[in-house]
């Protein structure tokens, strides 16, 4: 119920999450616009400008049209002074009996506020929530005749007080009707109807009945019952429970009260005083406390409206912490008037240019303003890595996603996820447009069928979709994003562990479905085709990804003998609805062979024609889980081996993904070959293979893997101060290399074959950059054959998936591969252990038995 309301209120926020935004009044907006308060608080255009500016700076998930607490009383006839530097103060209160019901929507400054709301609506996307603040009848009455006088009248002349409340209530009922009719959401503020001021008894008598009537009107209008109560609320629990608000904004937390409000969305309650300081830590702490306490889904907000000179940096801090779901960036800002924000430098290497930018500015947006072009695959949600740069100085704190994607020690960051808080130096190669996947060269479907299809490489780290014209076979567009499952664990094993929890499993599945549905939407929109024309959809993923896709957990995969219930099942059809495709489309999941030999391997076999070709061929996927397939005239035998993440550079001292700054090998002159530029920042997976081959060849490392000592007596080898290889890195690499080489050797033994009889070795995997075959042979990672026989299949899974689109032939082959591939389980193979240990050494070792 709470979730439903939340999703209706925040259609732009992904279901079930947290929304965030500060409460702002005209005084803070005036500060942001650098104008006097009295110029802004009665001017609809300026209020709108201030709100839009605040939206740009804070990226909130909603805006509240609110000037100050005197607006409603002024509309009913009270008079106020309007100073330049503070909010209006009363000039003349009314007498209770002078007050009459008025048409609020056309009185005082309220028409200006409607004007502001209309402008904001015009300038924001459809569905962006715009709240319109009004006062509850009790607070309105208090402001109208003076709070002291009103409170005394409750005691001495309750009948007169009730008559006043009645008139206030009728006026506000008219106003909320107009607000709802115009499509805004009324937010009822109760600054004086606070527990600390009046206590539960009076609240029940003088606040609740009128609020209740106001809420009834709001419900009739099919809008939301939203209220903000200042100060203490716990004692008001019985009244609030009866009022059943859809949204309750609070200043103080009370656990007990929320147990009675299962359907109410909580909003709050980062103390507004904190925003006057420079103290980021306290704001962070307070925000985290809110995130921990508030029942989800919730709205992280300030406890009340921001003080006029609230420090924008701190507000952004609150937003960043709350905003695991950072909303898309707004358009670039060109507004003047925020000179109070300090400036910092972004130094961009290798060209050594310097940008001077305002504190709090989004780094990616600043780079874009200065002419950098990025592939924007994820809408700045920190999901696609396409805007990554390496921070050589003052790398900001990592997001969880970055930690999982780049590794704990990496200095790579997604620029869309960080703002400028100090001088930074980043490394961006010239014309940096690096995608996580290779371009689409010679990558196509069989063609000859009508309509459109989408092939999906459902990787455990990156998911890639390929939109394909089924008539021509051409892949016309692609889209990649980080697998949303990453928040349930960086590697497949920890996700399997998480999935033992039913609720988490449901989330894993639904997040993946939603992510792909969104990606389909994006692909179709950017290619200007309707999603109803997508007739074929084919997904290839490893067995765990396939299980999760179908809503299943590990079930057999996570334990020996690593079996999957999908074995022998052929392609599994699934409901097109889960990815938002028409029910007529043909949606299938690639067959899997076994628990650790999945649909991605089947697709890679298809992409390399291993099942058809004559001769003896070996396919090796160099990933965390190394799948190996040996083909003898199309007869397939396969195994998988736990190599660990070393081949992806993960867990190594200087390991990094194959992005600019990574050493990927050596140039013919023997210099490090660095992706994108000059300074090396680390080593990617393929780089390690080249570096270790070089160390072996030059004798810096012995065939047993022991490094020479450097002049300090450490077993260390450094290229520069950033990039080192230590003995521990070599040992991790030896485990990975030993596992793969022993797997290959085991398959040869089973097939009664010698490695020199091979016609081809095909390498595939998630290196992002090609392995140097000479190095791979030198360190005996792959069999010692002529380099000309080593080939590569990039994106084997994606290619195979595309080939299956609309093709009965390829789909039938996939099913045949599933049926015919013989699986060798290394754990059950006698002598595997010994092969594993022997293969940890490099060529030149004298070790030949254990």
């Amino acid at each position: 119920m709470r979730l439903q309301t939340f999703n209706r209120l925040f259609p732009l926020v992904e279901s079930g999450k947290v929304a965030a935004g500060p409460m702002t009044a005209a005084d803070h907006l005036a500060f942001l616009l650098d104008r006097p308060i009295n110029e802004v608080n009665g001017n609809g255009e300026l209020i709108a400008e201030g709100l839009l500016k605040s939206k740009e700076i804070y990226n909130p998930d909603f805006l509240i049209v609110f000037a100050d607490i005197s607006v409603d009383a002024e509309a009913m006839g009270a008079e106020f002074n309007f100073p330049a530097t503070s909010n209006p103060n009363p000039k003349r209160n009314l007498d209770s009996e002078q007050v009459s019901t008025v048409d609020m929507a056309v009185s005082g400054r309220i028409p200006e506020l409607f004007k502001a709301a209309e402008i904001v609506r015009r300038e924001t996307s459809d569905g962006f929530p715009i709240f319109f603040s009004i006062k509850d009848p009790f607070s309105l009455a208090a402001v109208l005749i003076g709070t002291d006088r009103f409170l005394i009248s409750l005691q001495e002349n309750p009948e007169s007080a009730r008559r006043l409340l009645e008139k206030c209530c009728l006026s506000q009922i008219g106003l909320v009707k107009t607000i709802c009719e115009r499509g805004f959401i009324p937010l009822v503020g109760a600054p004086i109807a606070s527990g600390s001021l009046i206590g539960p008894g009076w609240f029940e008598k003088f606040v609740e009945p009128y609020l209740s009537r106001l809420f009834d009107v709001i419900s009739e209008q099919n809008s939301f019952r939203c209220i903000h109560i200042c100060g203490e609320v716990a004692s008001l629990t019985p009244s609030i429970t009866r009022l059943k608000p859809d949204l309750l904004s609070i200043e103080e937390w009370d656990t007990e009260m929320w147990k009675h409000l299962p359907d109410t969305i909580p909003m709050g309650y980062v103390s507004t005083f904190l925003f006057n300081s420079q103290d980021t830590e306290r704001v962070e702490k307070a925000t985290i406390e809110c995130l921990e306490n508030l029942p989800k889904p919730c709205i992280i907000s300030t406890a009340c409206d921001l003080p006029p000179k609230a420090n924008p940096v701190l507000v952004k801090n609150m937003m960043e912490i709350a905003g695991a779901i950072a909303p898309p960036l707004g358009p670039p800002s060109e507004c003047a008037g925020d000179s109070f924000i300090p400036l910092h430098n972004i130094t961009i290497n290798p060209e050594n240019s310097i940008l001077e930018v305002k504190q709090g500015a989004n780094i990616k947006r600043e780079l874009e303003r200065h002419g950098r072009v990025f592939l924007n695959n994820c809408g700045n949600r920190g999901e696609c890595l396409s805007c990554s740069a390496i921070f050589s100085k003052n790398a900001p704190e990592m997001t969880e996603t970055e930690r999982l994607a780049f590794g704990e020690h990496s200095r790579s960051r997604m620029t869309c996820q960080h703002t400028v808080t100090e001088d930074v130096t980043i490394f961006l190669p010239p014309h940096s447009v690096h995608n996580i996947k290779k371009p689409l060269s010679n990558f196509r479907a069989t063609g000859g069928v009508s309509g459109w299809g989408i092939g999906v490489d459902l990787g455990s780290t990156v998911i890639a979709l390929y939109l394909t014209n089924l008539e021509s076979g051409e892949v016309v567009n692609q889209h990649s994003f980080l697998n949303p499952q990453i928040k349930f664990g960086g590697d497949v094993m920890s996700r399997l562990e998480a999935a033992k929890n039913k609720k988490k499993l449901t989330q894993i599945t639904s997040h993946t479905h939603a992510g792909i549905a969104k990606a389909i939407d994006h692909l179709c929109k950017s290619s200007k085709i309707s999603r109803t024309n997508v007739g074929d959809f084919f997904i290839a993923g490893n067995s765990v990804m396939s299980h999760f896709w179908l809503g299943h957990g590990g079930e057999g995969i996570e334990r020996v003998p690593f079996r999957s219930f999908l074995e022998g099942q052929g392609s599994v059809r699934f409901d097109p609805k889960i990815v938002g495709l028409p029910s007529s489309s043909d949606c299938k999941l690639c067959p899997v062979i076994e628990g650790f030999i999945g649909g991605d391997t089947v697709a890679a076999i298809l992409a390399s024609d291993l099942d058809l070709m004559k001769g003896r061929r070996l396919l090796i996927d160099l990933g965390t889980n190394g799948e190996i397939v040996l083909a003898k005239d199309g007869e397939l035998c396969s195994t998988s081996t736990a190599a660990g993440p070393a081949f992806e550079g993960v867990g190594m001292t200087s390991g990094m993904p194959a992005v600019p700054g990574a050493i990927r090998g050596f140039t013919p002159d023997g210099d490090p070959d660095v992706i994108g530029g000059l300074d090396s920042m680390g080593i990617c997976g393929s780089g390690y293979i080249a570096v270790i081959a070089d160390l072996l060849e030059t004798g810096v490392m012995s065939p047993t893997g022991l490094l020479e000592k450097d002049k300090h007596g450490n077993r260390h080898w450094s290229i520069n101060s950033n990039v080192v290889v230590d003995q521990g890195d070599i040992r991790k690499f030896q485990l990975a290399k030993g596992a793969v080489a022993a797997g290959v050797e085991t398959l040869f033994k089973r097939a009664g074959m010698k490695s020199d009889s091979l016609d081809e070795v095909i390498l595939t995997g998630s290196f992002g950059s090609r392995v140097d075959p000479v190095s791979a042979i030198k360190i005996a990672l792959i069999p010692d054959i002529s380099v000309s026989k080593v080939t590569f299949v990039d994106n084997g899974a994606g290619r195979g998936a595309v080939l299956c689109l609309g093709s009965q032939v390829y789909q039938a082959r996939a099913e045949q591969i599933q049926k015919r591939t013989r699986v060798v389980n290394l754990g059950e193979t006698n002598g595997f252990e010994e092969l594993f240990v022997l293969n940890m050494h490099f060529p030149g070792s004298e070790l030949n038995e254990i």
Partner: protein
Amino acid sequence: MHIYDKLAKAVVEMKAAEVKLLALQVLDEGFPPDEAIQKGLAVGMQEVGRLFSCKDYFVPEVLVSARAMYTGFNILKPKVIEGAVADKGTILIGVVEGDYHDIGKNIVKLMLEASGFRLVDLGKNVSVDAFTRAVVEEKPAIAAMSTLMTTTMDSMEEIVVRLTKDAPEVKIMIGGAPVNQDFADSIGAHFYGDDVDQAIVGAHKLLGIKA
């Protein structure tokens, strides 16, 4: 160089043939075989353990050293008068159900053996039942288990529950990549070791004896 030091050195240098000659020489020259095991072979193996910890040696070197050590051990052990070698206690060791990865377990086993414990190795993929039954039958002082896979950690918990009931006197130690102290505490294991060194320290500590 004393013959015991030569034995230790040959173990560290992985020279099985030399260990064999030295062991025969020990017997020829009338040195007590139990002393040769303790001050020669075991000392050599402890040095191997140190080299493994500081990463100068890796799995193959440890296993080849162990092979050299056993060459000598198999010659000397039959000549030891019963009871002359102090037995520090029996440790039962195995990789829990669902997992085949046992290289780490094998190294821990070797080093514990070299430190003077008697080891009973249940191997890999050991079911909860089999593990519990073996503990009840063998009555070891310590039951040690490991896994490399996150997904099989709950077997450990089941074994601890069973052992607490069926063999309450046994001390339980655990290890393996996904395991940590918090996990050990949460399932009620008596000791968690991060590496082979800690396993040796822990085994002594659990039994209240000196290394």
